[in-house]
């Protein structure tokens, strides 16, 4: 079993208080079906003073970004792929995980799409590049970029959101369609691995 990867940007070490805040907020998002939860309610759930929440996360954006990173690193954490050709399996797996926690999946998807104020939209990119370069080093730069772009796009919670919202797919069909598309991206390079 591989180590758990949390993306290229390491999640900062959290204090016990911070973990309690993020866990409380995460629970509330799932219960209420919205990230619009007041600091007072979060503090009460975490069993701390509202002021402590503000001291750790001065703005809602700070809180939301920290929570999304925490959710990705814990609830949506995944096994590391050992080959670029394992990525479709990892994607299939991830989609099923998103489907089990829809509210949290939306929160993670949204924070990644905020532009400069948001989370890194392709946290797994460095990992994908490592795998691709190790196995298929002969790609020209444009082709390599296109493969990385397509795979990091498919290997994201945005896939789950879009397939569900625009096509009404259930978790199984989303996992299947996303893995299928990732296999399509890899089809062109299957026979080009380094000896």
């Amino acid at each position: 079993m591989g180590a758990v990867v949390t993306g290229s940007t390491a999640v900062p070490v959290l204090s016990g208080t911070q973990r309690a805040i993020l866990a409380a907020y995460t629970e509330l998002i799932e219960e209420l079906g919205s990230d619009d939860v007041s600091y007072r309610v979060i503090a009460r759930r975490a069993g701390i003073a509202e002021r402590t929440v503000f001291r750790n996360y001065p703005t809602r954006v700070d809180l939301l970004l920290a929570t999304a990173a925490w959710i990705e690193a814990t609830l949506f954490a995944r096994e590391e792929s050992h080959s670029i050709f394992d990525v479709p399996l990892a994607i299939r797996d991830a989609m099923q995980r998103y489907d089990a926690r829809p509210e949290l999946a939306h929160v993670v998807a949204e924070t990644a799409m905020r532009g400069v104020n948001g989370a890194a939209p392709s946290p797994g990119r460095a990992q994908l590049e490592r795998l691709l370069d190790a196995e298929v080093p002969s790609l020209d730069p444009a082709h390599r970029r296109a493969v990385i772009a397509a795979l990091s796009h498919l290997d994201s919670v945005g896939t789950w959101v879009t397939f569900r919202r625009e096509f009404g797919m259930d978790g199984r069909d989303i996992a299947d369609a996303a893995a299928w598309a990732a296999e399509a991206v890899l089809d062109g390079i299957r026979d080009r691995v380094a000896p």
Partner: protein
Amino acid sequence: MEEPVDTATAILASAAVLLRERTFDDISYRALADEVGISERTIYRQYPTRAHLLAALSNWIEQTCFPLPPFVTVSDFCAAVHQRFHAFDASPAYAYVGARASAISPTLDTEPAYLTRAIEAMLDVAAPTLNRRDRRRVAASLRYFSSAMFWARLRTGLDLDAAEICDAFDQAVSTVLARLPEATWARS
């Protein structure tokens, strides 16, 4: 911009103006109320939560700033998407609002976007004998690669410009379509 006909639209038009100088997160209902010249409470009545405002703003921006050229063939589809990605590059703040709105938990029973329907119609014509499952997988993939999310991810996460994003899009489309059996393509 022409005179908005109703309060709801006036709010969106003003929000779009404010988006030129600050992010969506930094547009408070108070500032928006001042900009439109109405009370904050009127905005809450139209858009009870920021998610409602975001979704409505994104729709409005989509219609006024990023109209999608109609397409029937795959090459027209690619050309239409290229045009969109270039328009996104010219108005990144607006494009991010679109990407973000398409990621949130839907606030209303929203219809699939026009783009989704157009892709499905295109596949019906281009590959009429394709089985349902494959058609849906192809449609979903093409839809996702043509989304504002794709543009936003590649621009922020991979630092690509519109021309490079269009290249990556074209390659993604051709790899997905290459998976379809030759026989399913309509002869023209």
